[in-house]
C-alpha cells in the first residue's frame, strides 16, 4: 500500500465523521430547546461541515481523480462512507444529542491536538484551525453534561440513557489498521492509543462531576473502517444527497 492511498483513506475517515455529525446536528435547526441553544448548536454544525469541506477537498486532491469535495460528499454511497458509527446515530432527545456530542468532542479535541503537529502541512493547518473550534464545542457540551447529568431526576435519567445507548460505539473510535500504521510511521497520522488514554481520563472526570455512570456493557460495535454502517446512515445520505443527485451539476 502506498502513502497516497493511505492518506486518501485517512482523510475520508476524518472528513466523513465531521460531515455526518455536522449533518446530524443540522437536523436540530429550528427545533432547539431555546432560541439561543438552537443558534449555538447550528454554529457547531456549521463548524463541522466547514471542517469536512476542507478535509474532503484535500482528499480529492490527494486521490488525483478530479473529484472535488461535493463529488465526495454527494456522490458516494453508504458503503463508501468512512465516518465513525457514533456520528450517524440519530439525535434522539436533547440529552442523547449532548451525550453523543460530548463523547465525540472529547475525541476530536485530543485527536486534533495530535494532528496539529502532523508532518503533512495541509492536514496540520486544517487541524490547527479545527482545534480552536473544537475547544469551544467541548466547553459547550461539557457544561450541558453537568447541567443535565446533575440537574433534575428526569434530565439525569435521559442523559444516562443516552450515554448507555451510545457507549458500544465508542471503542471503534480508537481502532487502528494498516492505513494508520503506515501514516504514523510517516508522522502524518495520530496514534489513537494516546488519544484513547486522554479520552478516557477526560470522560471519567466529566462523568464524575455530572454524576453519570460509565456503562458496564462490554458489547462493542464496529465496522465503519470497512464501510459497514448502522441502518441509520442510508436514510441520512438519502436526505443529504437528494438535491445534488436530482439536479446533477446544478449551479446557483
Amino acid at each position, binding site marked *: 500500500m502506498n502513502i497516497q492511498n493511505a492518506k486518501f483513506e485517512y482523510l475520508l475517515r476524518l472528513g466523513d465523521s465531521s460531515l455526518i455529525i455536522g449533518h446530524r446536528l443540522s437536523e436540530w435547526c429550528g427545533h432547539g430547546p*431555546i*432560541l*439561543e*441553544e438552537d*443558534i*449555538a448548536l447550528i*454554529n457547531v454544525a456549521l463548524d463541522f461541515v466547514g471542517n469536512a469541506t476542507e478535509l474532503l477537498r484535500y482528499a480529492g486532491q490527494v486521490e488525483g481523480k478530479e473529484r472535488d469535495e461535493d463529488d465526495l460528499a454527494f456522490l458516494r454511497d453508504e458503503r463508501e462512507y468512512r465516518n465513525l458509527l457514533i456520528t450517524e446515530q440519530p439525535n434522539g432527545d436533547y440529552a442523547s444529542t449532548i451525550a453523543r456530542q460530548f463523547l465525540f468532542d472529547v475525541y476530536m479535541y485530543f485527536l486534533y491536538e495530535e494532528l496539529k503537529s502532523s508532518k503533512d502541512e495541509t492536514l496540520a493547518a486544517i487541524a490547527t484551525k479545527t482545534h480552536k473550534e473544537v475547544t*469551544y464545542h467541548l*466547553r*459547550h457540551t461539557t*457544561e450541558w453534561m453537568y*447541567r443535565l447529568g446533575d440537574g433534575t431526576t428526569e434530565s439525569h435519567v435521559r442523559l444516562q440513557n443516552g450515554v448507555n445507548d451510545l457507549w458500544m460505539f465508542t471503542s471503534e473510535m480508537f481502532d487502528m489498521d494498516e492505513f494508520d500504521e503506515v501514516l504514523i510511521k510517516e508522522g502524518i497520522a495520530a496514534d489513537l492509543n494516546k488519544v484513547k488514554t486522554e479520552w478516557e481520563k477526560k470522560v471519567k472526570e466529566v462523568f464524575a462531576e455530572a454524576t453519570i455512570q460509565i456503562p458496564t456493557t462490554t458489547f462493542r460495535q464496529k465496522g465503519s473502517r470497512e464501510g459497514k454502517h448502522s441502518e441509520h446512515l442510508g436514510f441520512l445520505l438519502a436526505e443529504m444527497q437528494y438535491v445534488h443527485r436530482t439536479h446533477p451539476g446544478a449551479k446557483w
Partner: protein
Amino acid sequence: MSDTQLPVWEVFIQANPGIAHKHAGNVHAADAEMALQNARDVYSRRSEGMNIWVVPASAITASSPEDQGAFFEPSNDKPYRHPTFYKIPKGVKYL
C-alpha cells in the same frame, strides 16, 4: 405573552482593544457561563468583538421616564461644559 424561558442577561461587546463595551442585546441563560456562551454564539458570529460582558438584567437599575426633566434638562443650557476649546491630538482614535 410572558417570557417563560430562562432569566435575561444583557450582553456588552468590546469590538477593539481600548474602547468601551457596547450594548449588543440580550440572551436567556440559567447561569453566568451559559450566558457567556449564549452571548458568544448569538452576538459574535460575525467577528463583532474580542471581549464580552454579560450582566443579569435584574442587576441593572435604570432611571425612569418621569426622571427626564429633573435628571437631564438642567444641563441643556450649559454649553460651557463641553470641552470644545481643546484640540484633539492626531492619532487619538477612540475618544
